[in-house]
């Protein structure tokens, strides 16, 4: 019986991706289109290669991709995953390894095949570890388990010997670098893709199921939601987005080592962006990403040493005084009347 259900699963999944309700309010569509157009015209007005602002936007796009991934896992499905940086790093490493070992025989630099593969490798890891972890561990135990996965993978890469080249990492041929413009465009495109993915997931049956799991797992299961499948699906989506972001960052960095791409900042910052903006909403992580990336860029320029202190303080203050984030603030003000 289980096999039968699994055989039907891909079909069910596709069917459930069809949105049940798309917003019909034209104002939102107009605003969304205007914002996209505004970002798309930025390279025509400012010089992307020299401007710090363009770099800042590139960073925002990267963070939006990862944060939307975490948003699906934690914001919608309610599973606090603490290994997004591993997926990010794995994506970067996949790109680097494919390039260095000449695997796919394609162009490598900004090659869609490589980027998709870099997204899929973390997905494979997410499925392999997700099925045992998500079926056995709930809540905090899952968070701790993903933390264990994170450290195991980091140590494995550090100890990978000649294959991963240990702590020194991979050096990609940086001669191919010409300009920042393709980074900007790819970043924007992928960020739009990430937002669209989350939008379609949340507006479909899958999103409904994920939210049901977040609110009450037992109740969701008793209504016929296959809890494990949906949780693993959400986990895999998060892994895919983080992996693709990692691939893009690998093209930017050219030197991939565990310290740079597996850094805990790639875990904490996206989480912080989600909760700051409003977890479990689509615009929340976007607002959070722009706000926090601005704060941290500003901090690293003017207070290079002390700015992480303020990031920590900010998390505490936000969580202490507005646990529902910037988006939730609007509701709170409205409900106060």
């Amino acid at each position: 019986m289980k096999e039968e259900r699994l055989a039907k699963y891909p079909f069910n999944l596709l069917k459930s991706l069809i949105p049940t309700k798309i917003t019909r309010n034209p104002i939102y569509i107009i605003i969304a289109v205007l914002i996209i157009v505004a970002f798309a015209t930025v390279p025509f007005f400012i010089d992307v290669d020299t401007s710090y602002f363009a770099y800042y936007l590139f960073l925002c796009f990267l963070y939006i991709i990862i944060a939307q991934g975490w948003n699906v896992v934690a914001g919608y499905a309610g599973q606090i995953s603490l290994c997004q940086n591993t997926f990010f790093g794995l994506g970067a490493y996949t790109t680097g390894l494919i390039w260095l070992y000449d695997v796919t025989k394609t162009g490598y630099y900004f090659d869609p095949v490589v980027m998709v593969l870099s997204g899929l490798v973390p997905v494979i890891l997410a499925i392999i570890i997700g099925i045992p972890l998500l079926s056995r561990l709930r809540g905090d135990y899952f968070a701790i388990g993903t933390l264990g996965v994170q450290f195991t993978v980091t140590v494995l890469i550090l100890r990978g010997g000649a294959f991963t080249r240990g702590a020194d990492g991979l050096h990609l041929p940086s001669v191919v670098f010409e300009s920042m413009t393709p980074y900007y465009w790819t970043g924007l495109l992928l960020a739009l893709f990430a937002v669209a993915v989350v939008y379609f997931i949340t507006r479909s049956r899958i999103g409904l199921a994920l939210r049901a799991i977040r609110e009450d797992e037992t109740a969701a299961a008793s209504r016929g939601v296959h809890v494990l499948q949906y949780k693993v699906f959400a986990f895999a989506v998060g892994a895919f987005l983080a992996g693709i972001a990692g691939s893009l960052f690998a093209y930017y960095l050219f030197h991939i080592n565990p310290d740079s791409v597996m850094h805990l900042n790639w875990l904490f910052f996206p989480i912080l962006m989600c909760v700051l903006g409003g977890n479990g909403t689509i615009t929340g992580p976007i607002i959070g990403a722009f706000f926090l990336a601005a704060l941290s860029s500003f901090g690293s320029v003017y207070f290079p040493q002390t700015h992480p202190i303020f990031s920590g303080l900010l998390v505490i203050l936000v969580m202490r005084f507005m646990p529902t984030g910037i988006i939730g603030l609007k509701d709170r003000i409205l409900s106060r009347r």
Partner: protein
Amino acid sequence: MGEFGIITQVLVNGILFGTMYGIAAIGLSLIFGTMRIIFFAQGVIIIFFAYICYWLFTLLGIDPYLSLILIIPISLLLGMGFYYGLFKEAAALEQREVSLLIAIGLLWLVENAMMVVWTPNPRTIVTAYTSWVLELGGLIISFTRLIALLIALLSAVGVFVFLKRTRIGTAVRAASEDMESTTLMGINPNWVNAVTFALGIGLAGTAGVAFATVYSFDPMYGFTFVIMSVIALAFGGFGNVFGALLGGIILGVLQSGASFFVSAGWADAICFGTFLLVLMFRPQGLFGKKV
């Protein structure tokens, strides 16, 4: 010293280091019991108190062990302050990720503040008795490590007696079983949470002093410490005082054994791997009863 002697020495070192994880794990276990969160800042708080101990020693010349008289009350108060200042609202919200993120924010804040104040360079406390060594049948145990072990055991016993013999201790135990029913019995949940936080941070203070006298420490070590304590906690089973201590000792032995027999680089991977296996197949801990 023969082969056997080396193995015993590795074992003893593991046990002595493991008690540090154990004492941190007891604190985590208490806070997890009532608040249901992993208090990720525990490790940096331990290192913070190690630095306080270091300052008391270098600036004021107070003996590290004597400074316990000062550090224990401060840490107890700090724990209570943490609860009332930071976690009270989040605990009432019943959204545990909020408390979890506050703990992570605290980790970040304290770690980076320590980097600025004390620089990332490792520090050690060197006293007159740091180099004292006891030789027991070929084993070499330093005096400070033995005292650290003693401090860890005493605080574990202290917490155990507090939980078993006092009224508020009983309330804490009841709250870890079922917070809602405990509240219905007329126990103030805030007070129970504040007491567990005080105990947890108090243990962190004691562990900080014990750690500072034996090992060198730097701000970044706090995160590693809390991860190791979480592993110790998983080994011992959540919500079990002596289990947590024993889990810490097992982890210490595993770590020192793995770094001796395999290699120091792989030791961490072995610990995390074992941790994942324990979490999967015995989530109730190695000594816990199956629920």
